[in-house]
């Protein structure tokens, strides 16, 4: 278990304030946040590059930094990879093995395993400046596999690489996770998060907003910020502003809050249906799969319709009358 207790660090124009974190062993944990949310600072604290003003970081009860060089606990891939430019790919992958007490055979095995897993056999003699973005990441991952540490920290490993390489890397990251490693992956990309994570930590302005098992966080966003991240545009801290008609149709329990309904869980039609609210289209924004439509109820609700939806027989336009009700 990776535990972070009351971690604080004040930098010139930024601070991490009293961060608490628990990541179960074997998790694929994603730290999700927008740029400037403090993700990288948290990573630098977690891997010991910057010293905290206060707080402690432990792994299975012992300080994460009381580690021996012979058996390091963490390995890190930073955003710019840090492949050593003066060493060949093979020398880069071998680098961490120099400091671990390994027999010749073990060292050769580790190297072979890392090269096979990442398919970097054809790159061994090349130097980092001759590698593409995807190849660079594969070599960095090979180095991590060779290190064979219990925890792997990754800082935006999938940004700035082409789509094909990204797919290969996602597959590779899954394979590494399946070997039992605890992975802590920093990203601003929600799609990556859904594809890889089983544990989620959400950051904003230097604070951890919500953390937990992936499904729990996604299905029960704690506040509007988290809700918006996953497309829950209908997140209401309290139900005070709802009109009686909306409360009746959507069966809102006014004693409990918050009220959350995903836009895709609302049915919308141009003809009247039983037990629905009459409303009009206020604003439309197109996405890859359909439209988000804001309708003028009190308060406003956002409805998602996909391209196959019958509503699209008439193109949505502002002012169009429509009826909404919860999807069954």
């Amino acid at each position, binding site marked *: 278990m990776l535990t972070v207790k009351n971690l604080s660090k004040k930098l010139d124009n930024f601070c991490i304030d009293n961060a608490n974190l628990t990541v179960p062993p074997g998790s694929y944990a994603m730290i999700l946040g927008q740029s400037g949310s403090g993700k990288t600072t948290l990573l630098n604290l977690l*891997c010991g590059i910057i010293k905290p003003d206060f707080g402690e970081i432990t792994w299975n009860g012992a300080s994460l930094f009381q580690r021996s*060089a012979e058996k390091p606990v963490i390995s*890190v891939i930073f955003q710019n990879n840090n492949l*050593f*430019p003066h060493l060949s790919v093979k020398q880069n992958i071998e*680098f961490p093995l120099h*400091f671990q007490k390994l027999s010749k055979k073990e060292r050769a095995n580790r190297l072979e395993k890392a090269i096979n897993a990442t398919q970097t056999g054809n790159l061994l003699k090349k130097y980092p400046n001759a590698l593409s973005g995807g190849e660079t990441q594969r070599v960095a991952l090979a180095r991590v596999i060779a290190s064979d540490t219990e925890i792997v920290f990754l800082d935006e490993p999938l940004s700035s690489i082409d789509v094909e390489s990204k797919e290969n890397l996602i597959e590779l990251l899954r394979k590494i996770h399946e070997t039992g490693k605890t992975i802590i992956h920093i990203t601003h990309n929600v799609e990556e998060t859904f594809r890889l994570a089983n544990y989620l930590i959400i950051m904003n302005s230097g604070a951890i907003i919500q953390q937990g098992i992936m499904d729990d966080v996604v299905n029960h966003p704690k506040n509007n910020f988290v809700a918006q991240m996953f497309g829950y545009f209908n997140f209401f801290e309290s139900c005070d502003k709802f009109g009686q008609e909306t409360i009746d149709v959507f069966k809102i329990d006014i004693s409990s809050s918050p009220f959350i309904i995903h836009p895709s869980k609302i049915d919308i039609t141009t003809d009247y249906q039983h037990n629905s609210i009459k409303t009009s289209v206020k604003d439309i924004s197109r996405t890859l799969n359909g439209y988000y439509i804001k309708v003028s109820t009190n308060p406003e609700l956002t409805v998602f319709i996909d391209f196959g939806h019958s509503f699209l027989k008439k193109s949505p336009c502002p002012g169009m009358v429509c009826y909404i009700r919860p999807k069954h």
Partner: protein
Amino acid sequence: MENDSHVVTFAKMAKEMNLGKSVALLLSGLMLMFLIAPIIGLFASVNFPTLHETIKDNQVADSIGLTLSTAAITTLIFSILAIPTAYFLARKKFIGKNFLLGMINIPIVIPHSAAGIALLGIISRQTMVGQFAQKIGIPLLDSPIAIGLAMSFVSVPYLINTAREGFAGIPVRYEQQAKLMGASSTDVFFRISLPLNWRYILNGIIQMFARGMSEFGAVVIVSYHPTTTPVLIYERFTSYGLTYAQPIAVIFITICLIVFVLLRKIAQNSYANS
């Protein structure tokens, strides 16, 4: 009409550009002439029978051997001290760092005869260092050691400065990454920082060697005999005149040029390989 006026303007611009180019060429030509003319003049005016005689002169050969070997040995010995110093100065922040950086450049900015006098103040027979050296049988004054010390005193700042600049240019993240993989500070220095800074270090070594072997002012104060070539040129000039000083100068400059072309070639090859 309008088109014609454009043509006129272009012609005018082209004329102005040509004029600018000519002025720049003239200035650069003058500059280069100033640098090259004395050397060409020296080679052109040398008297061949005297040159032949000088080549066979044992004192000249000995002095060239002494100059080159002392400069090379001291450059190598002082590299061992200068390179870690440069690394320390590039990576560490401490109070008085700027003052220290200024101090390192003192031997470069003061007159070299003054540098020689300063050095003499430490190694002369009256000082503790001088007396101790004498006691253990190492002659400091008028010896290759004195020459080496004088050469290094005025030339080692070039190596420290160049190497420091190089170390400062290496992103710290490579060193941090190596440490995270279990490398000790020594490992980081020898496996990461030193090889990444190899070009700057080599450049600094060449500069230090060049500056050391051509040193006159500081060397002449601490060691007149044995005599380095720059001192011998001066001695021949004051004792026998220009005709006898010129051949040694020609021989020494030729050797210097050959050495530097070779060193640059080695440096370039190592750049290409790195």
